[in-house]
């Protein structure tokens, strides 16, 4: 796995170089894919690099109080522009050794449980919370599953929906599905210009829907995963412009813009009564989704064993058309189950 990811990291590097060139608007797929490479660029500033430029003071807190300390997630207390805040963010390593130590920024359950602990401390102390999101995805290994990676993500999401303190989230690089969302539930969600956010990695999406990872760029385009797209979808509230050829080319300028945006939003959020804040956060996510409500007519059922027949059959009636019962259709069926990390 390590080797595989190093190679991938290598590709990222080169990808970034190629991306340094102008994006060809005539080829949207290439343009989107270039952005994905930019988002993955190993030289982008991560949580610790940003804090060094943004915070006047920072004390990192370690450990989940259950099992261990996860280097892929950084959490602690910081002072930004004189304001005390709790900071949580993923942390990849810029160099290979450091990247391996940080598990390529892919957290284990301990990481999310550390985040939960420190965010709860922030709530008790009445400190606003700032999160920096940049993760390929939560660690998918067996140890991660054994210790409940899904449960830890769910619990972190749950906590953030009810934390009685302002939360500002910044997607700084890869917004990799549930592993990102676990610390990305905010009153305000910002994204850097070249950040991406998706329900599944383009490679994973392509390998399922296109049956080959080579179609990752097509999947990236189809998922509309760029910051600009996410802004249109309402998943992101504001896009923070990046300097020059991207955040990796100018850390101080990037940090400065991010800092300004964070302070501006915190100032607004802190004026809200907590009950209003929580209710607004609930409404923000309650409203996300795209559906319509039909004046209900039963969907036309094709001329074959009907649903109620099948039901009657299930309840002990005739044996015909068992093929139709529940999840065992004999008819051709080409939807692959969406088995993937979120």
């Amino acid at each position, binding site marked *: *796995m390590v080797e*595989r990811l190093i190679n991938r990291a290598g590709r990222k590097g080169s990808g970034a170089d190629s991306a340094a060139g102008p994006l060809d608007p005539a080829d949207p797929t290439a343009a989107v894919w270039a952005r994905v490479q930019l988002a993955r660029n190993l030289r982008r500033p991560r949580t610790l690099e940003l804090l060094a430029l943004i915070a006047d003071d920072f004390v990192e807190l370690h450990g989940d109080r259950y099992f261990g300390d996860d280097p892929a997630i950084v959490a602690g207390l910081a002072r930004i522009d004189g304001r005390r805040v709790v900071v949580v963010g993923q942390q990849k390593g810029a160099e290979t050794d450091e990247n391996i130590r940080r598990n390529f920024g892919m957290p284990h359950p301990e990481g999310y449980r550390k985040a939960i602990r420190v965010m709860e401390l922030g709530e008790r102390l009445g400190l606003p919370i700032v999160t920096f999101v940049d993760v390929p*995805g*939560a660690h*998918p*290994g*067996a140890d991660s*599953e054994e210790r*409940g*990676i*899904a449960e830890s993500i*769910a619990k972190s*999401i*749950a906590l953030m*929906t*009810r934390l009685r303190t302002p939360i500002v989230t910044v997607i700084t690089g890869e917004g990799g*599905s*549930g592993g990102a*969302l676990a610390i990305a539930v905010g009153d305000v969600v910002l994204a850097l210009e070249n950040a991406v956010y*998706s*329900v*599944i990695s383009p490679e994973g999406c392509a390998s399922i829907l*296109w049956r080959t990872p080579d179609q990752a760029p097509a*999947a990236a385009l*189809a998922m*509309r995963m760029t910051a600009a797209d996410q802004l249109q*979808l309402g998943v992101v509230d504001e896009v923070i412009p990046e300097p020059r050829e991207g955040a990796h080319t100018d850390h101080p300028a990037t940090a400065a813009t991010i800092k300004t945006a964070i302070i501006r939003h915190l100032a607004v959020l802190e004026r809200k009564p907590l009950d209003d804040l929580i209710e607004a956060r*609930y409404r923000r996510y*309650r409203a996300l*989704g*795209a*559906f319509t*409500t*039909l004046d209900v007519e039963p*969907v036309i059922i094709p001329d074959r064993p009907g*649903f*109620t027949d099948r*039901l009657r*059959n*299930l*309840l*002990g009636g005739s*044996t*015909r058309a*068992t093929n139709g*019962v529940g*999840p*065992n*259709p*004999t*008819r051709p*069926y*080409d*939807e692959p*189950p*969406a*088995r*993937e*990390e*979120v």
Partner: protein
Amino acid sequence: MPIKLPSFRQRRDAYPSDLWTQCPTCQEMLFNKQLDKALRVCSNCGHHFRLSAAARLSLLLDQDTFEERDSGLQSLDPLGFVDLKAYPDRVAAAQANTGLRDAAVWGFGAIGGRPIAICVMDFSFMGGSMGSVVGEKVARSAEAALARRIPLLIVSASGGARMQEGTLSLMQLVKTVAATERLRQAGIPLISLMSDPTTGGVFASFAALGDVNLAEPNALIGFAGARVSAGTIQGELPEGFQRSEFLFNHGFVDRVIHRSDLRDELIKLVGLLAPVQLADAGADNGSIAAFRPLSFLSALADRVIPESDEVVRG
């Protein structure tokens, strides 16, 4: 050993006949009528076949107490998503194949005479994947349970978030959990029943957060899918990896329950978790009348749930 991926193609090959079904676990040929009477559990090896939402509802609820809500919710195509096929075509095909409008059904019902809200997922609709409609139904079921102060039972059967709706599917994790958290914080019990499979974004949201987490035997329950794990995990996976008993042993499932015991256990559990709510449920009955059950499942819902005082008597 990569995880065996649930796949319909494989299943299709596994059912050569209309009258007989071969057990994918022990290869035994099972006479379908007997299989149905056995609640679709293999009489030879105990393999639990998947259930449709309708079958699940009829299995769990007091007879004729189900009253569906929001059957008219229909997914849109926010991304204009096209892979080898356009998303709307996939939805239409799934609707034609399953007779469902999306992968979840929710409504009110009774179990052991006690009113509950229930939301059931159906794997046969696009792998039970959670998009905007599923997320909305889960959230509404939680909000309704809170309004009536009655327990919520969610039966999961899902491969995870629905890729074709992109991050809007991802946001359903927050939407659903925000609603179930309000329920739990208000002291209203949430029971999560995980059936085969419960994976990805569904397990990483409401399914993992029940006040009580139940699972059917040997159900596939996990976060990362086969492709991911296979690609990243070195060597052998642990025995029973991502199966109900594995989750039980690691502390994430309270009880693994054979389908034949499921209803009795739930009656007992609901009785212990929930006091009989008079005032709230009663106060809310007006709004019940406002609804009319409209979907196919209306066949199951030609009676309204018992009045609260009847609940007390019964």
